[in-house]
């Protein structure tokens, strides 16, 4: 299985745009979607659910599911410890 560099770069750029938008929008996302998983496409929340697998099943039905980022948004701002 060979990786197509231009497709990989495009997918990385799409994911990065979504992630940077999520990071920047966290305060408002927390208010609207706190403690839920959100599905983001092109800087827009297109779906959300408390259950990851239910949300993933709906996202998989989309024709462009590869361009959707799924992320969990905590209602509170936590200190992170790995």
């Amino acid at each position, binding site marked *: 299985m060979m*990786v197509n560099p231009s497709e990989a770069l495009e997918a990385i*750029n799409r994911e990065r745009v979504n992630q*940077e938008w999520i*990071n920047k929008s966290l305060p408002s996302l927390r208010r609207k979607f706190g403690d839920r998983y959100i599905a983001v496409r092109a800087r827009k929340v297109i779906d959300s659910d408390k259950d990851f697998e239910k949300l993933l099943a709906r996202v998989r039905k989309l024709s462009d599911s590869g361009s959707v980022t799924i992320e969990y948004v905590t209602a509170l701002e936590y200190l992170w410890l*790995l």
Partner: protein
Amino acid sequence: MRSRLVLSERGIEVVAQFTCPARRITQTYNFLIDTGSSASYLGWEDATKAGIKVEELPSSSKPIFGFGGAADVKHLKDPSFLHVRFEDNTLETVELPDGILVYRPSRRKTTHWQSGPSVSLLGRDFLRMSGWKLIANLPREEAYLESP
């Protein structure tokens, strides 16, 4: 050459494409760079997104010790690859010959300690195997991976 990293409330992150030819997996993930972790991990949500049946993977041969709480750890043993974009829009590839670990945090939850969803991590093994430097200048809100 440099790859600019994303700074988030979780830490320093890199968006990379993960491929596992034996399982025909190609998925783009957001990984947290964790120099406190000796190994790299896929979170169970990210593994599930790729269609991996995490519960069917063998358990990690080594026990895991972590400060962030307990976790069930499995091992995706098939050789895998991480593809990272660098500034001149080129793609650099890191081979993970022993695959990657997959973890799921324990379900314990208390008022102030939230055992949340899993986060995919690139640990010191990734930094060693890639040969790249991790450069973090947090006062300037900049972080990079730098290839020789």
